C-alpha cells in the first residue's frame, strides 16, 4: 500500500477530476424528530452536496450493486416464438465518494457469495467491477459494533481510503487508478508528524465504541442455544417487516417474479430483494411454510449471519454497522439479541 497526505482543499479538485462519472456520496436528509441529522447515499452533482463528516446513512450503499428491484431479462413474444433480452444494467462507472470501512467490508462479503463463488452473479459483478471507491474514516455511533466483528478497518475492496488529520487527509492508495488521480493533486509523503496524527486519530476512534458483541465461540453457542426461549421473546416483538434486511449492507436474499404485460407481447423476469423475516420467505409450492413463526424467521436471520456464513467463509456476514437495530421499530438489536441468547455463561 502507498501512503500520501494532501491538504483538505485538494479534495474538491479530486471530485472535479472524477466528475465525468456518476458520483454517489453521503448527503444530508434533514433531521429526525429529535433533531438528530439524517444522512443517506445519493447521486451528487456538486462537491458541496457531500456531507463527508456524516455519522451513518439510514440505508446501506448496497442498492447501487444490488438494486431492490432489477429486471433480469425481458422477452418479446410473437405468434411463432419469443426472444430474450438480457441487460446487466451497467452503463457507466460509479464513483463512491466517502464510504465508511463497514460498508466497504460489506461489499467484500457480498463478493464472497456473488463474485467469487462457483456461479458468479453477472448483474452484481458488472456493477461491482465498475465501482471506484473512496473510503473515509468515521466517528463511531452508539449503535456501531463493527470492532466486535473485525470490520472497523478495511484492508481491500477500495481504491483510496482517507483519514481526516485536521487540515489534511491521510490517503491509503490501493489501485493504480487512484494513484494516477493523485498525481494530479498536490500530495506529499507522510511526515513523522502526519504518522503521529494518524495514529492519534485511530486511537481517538477506538475510544468512541460503546456497543459490543461477544463473538467468541458464537457459532457453537448458537448451535447449543437453538431451542433457547430467548428466540421466542424476540419473535414476539418482531414485526416481520423485513426492515432489518432492507437496510442491511450484506443481506442479499431475493425472489424472482415473472410478469406478462397486458398486451401479451412482452414479459419480464424481475428480481426483488426479499427478507428471511418476511412471512412468505420459506413458503413453498403447495403452500407449506417452513418458518411460520416470526421467532423461527428471526432466529434463522441470525443463524445465517453469525453461524452459516462463518462456517462457509470463516467470517461473519455481519459488519456491525448497527443499521438494523437503529431502523427496527421494535428495538431488536444484534448486541442485545446475541447477549440474550448467550445468557449467563
Amino acid at each position, binding site marked *: 500500500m502507498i501512503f500520501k497526505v494532501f491538504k483538505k482543499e485538494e479534495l474538491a479538485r479530486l471530485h472535479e477530476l472524477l466528475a465525468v462519472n456518476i458520483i454517489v456520496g453521503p448527503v444530508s436528509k434533514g433531521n*429526525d424528530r429529535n433533531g438528530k441529522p*439524517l444522512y443517506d447515499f445519493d447521486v451528487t452533482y456538486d462537491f458541496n452536496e457531500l456531507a463527508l463528516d456524516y455519522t451513518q446513512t439510514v440505508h446501506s450503499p448496497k442498492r447501487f450493486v444490488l438494486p*431492490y428491484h432489477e429486471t433480469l431479462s425481458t422477452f418479446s413474444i410473437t405468434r411463432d416464438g*419469443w426472444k430474450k433480452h438480457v441487460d446487466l444494467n451497467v452503463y457507466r462507472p460509479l464513483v463512491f465518494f466517502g464510504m465508511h470501512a463497514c460498508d466497504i467490508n460489506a461489499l467484500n462479503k457480498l463478493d464472497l457469495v456473488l463474485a467469487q463463488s462457483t456461479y458468479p452473479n453477472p448483474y452484481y459483478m458488472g456493477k461491482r467491477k465498475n465501482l471506484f471507491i473512496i473510503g473515509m474514516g468515521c466517528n463511531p455511533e452508539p449503535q456501531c459494533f463493527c470492532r466486535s466483528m473485525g470490520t472497523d478497518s478495511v484492508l481491500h475492496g477500495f481504491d483510496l481510503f482517507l483519514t481526516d488529520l485536521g487540515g489534511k487527509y491521510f490517503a491509503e492508495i490501493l489501485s493504480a487508478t487512484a494513484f494516477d488521480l493523485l498525481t494530479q493533486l498536490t500530495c506529499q509523503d507522510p511526515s513523522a508528524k502526519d504518522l503521529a496524527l494518524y495514529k492519534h486519530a485511530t486511537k481517538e476512534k477506538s475510544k468512541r465504541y460503546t456497543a459490543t458483541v461477544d463473538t467468541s465461540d458464537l457459532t457453537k453457542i448458537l448451535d447449543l442455544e437453538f431451542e433457547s426461549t430467548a428466540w421466542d421473546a424476540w419473535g414476539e416483538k418482531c*414485526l416481520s417487516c*423485513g*426492515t432489518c434486511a432492507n437496510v442491511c449492507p450484506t443481506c442479499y436474499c431475493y425472489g424472482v417474479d415473472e410478469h*406478462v404485460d397486458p398486451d401479451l407481447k412482452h414479459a419480464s423476469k424481475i428480481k426483488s430483494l426479499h427478507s428471511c423475516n*418476511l412471512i412468505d420467505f420459506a413458503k413453498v409450492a403447495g403452500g407449506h411454510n417452513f418458518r411460520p413463526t416470526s421467532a423461527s424467521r428471526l432466529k434463522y436471520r441470525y443463524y445465517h449471519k453469525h453461524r452459516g456464513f462463518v462456517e462457509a467463509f470463516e467470517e461473519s456476514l455481519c459488519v456491525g454497522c448497527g443499521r438494523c437495530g437503529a431502523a427496527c421499530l421494535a428495538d431488536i438489536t444484534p448486541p442485545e439479541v446475541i447477549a440474550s441468547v448467550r445468557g449467563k455463561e
Partner: protein
Amino acid sequence: MSGQLSYLGVPLTRPKVGFFELSSCEGCQLQLLNNEATLLDFLNLVEIVNFREGMSERSDTYDIAFVEGSVTRQDEITRLTEIRKNAKILVALGSCACFGGVNQLKNRFRDLEWVKKEVYGDFPIDTMEVHPLADFVQVDLSIFGCPIKKEEVERIVTDLVLGKAVHHPEYPVCVECKANQNICLFELGEPCLGPVTRAGCDAWCTSNRRGCWGCRGPAEAANLKQLEEIMHTYGFNKEAVIDRLECFGGFASYAHTTLPQNKKTPIKRKKS
C-alpha cells in the same frame, strides 16, 4: 377488441367481465379508466359487458364480476346475490368491498337510527350497518386498496386470463417503503400503519410523506400488539392508533377488541 387472444401460440379465452358498484365512490372503477397508457391493451384482454361508468350497454352474461363498494342497504344484498349467481368468479374490488371501507366507520356507533338522523335528517332512506361482500356471498378474490392500484389490477387480470395463480404480497408496506429509500416516518415524527398493513401499493402514501392508514388491511403476520407499543413509544395516544386502525375496516375486528368500550359508544362530537 379483435381476433383470438393467444400467448406463446396458446389460444386464450377472453373472459366476459362486468363491473358493478354498491355503496362506494366508484373511484376504484375510475382508476381503471384512468390508465390511458395501457387502457387499450387492458380492454383487449377482456370483453366488458357491464361497466356503468364507461358504457351504456348492459348484459347479465359474464364470467368475472368485479364488485366495488360495501353493502349498506337491503336491496344491495339482493343485487349482490344476483351478481354472484351470474358470475363464475366474484372479485371484491377495493377496500369497501373487502372490508366495508370508509363507509364502515359508522358501525362504531351504538345507535344507527341516531346516525341516520344526523346525516339524513327526516329524509326517508334505507340504510343499515355496513358489511363487506363476504358477509353475504362467497368472494373468490379480493383486490385491496383505497383506491385500488391500477397496475395491480392489470397484473391480476392478466394473470387470470393466462390462468396463472394470483398472489398478493403477504408482507407489510415497510418492505416497499424501504425499497423506495424512504426514511421511516416514525423517525420523522409521524404515525404510520406501514409495519402491519399489507403491501402491494408500492408504499404510495409513505413515499409521499403521508403515514399509512391501512387501506389494504392487515399483512399476514401483522403484529398489532407491537405496533401499539411503538405508537406509544413514539408519543401517539391510543385514540390516534384506533382512528387509523378503524378507518378502512381492514383492522376493524382488532380495533374493536382493543378498545371494547370504543365500539358502539355514543359519540362525542368534535366542535368545529
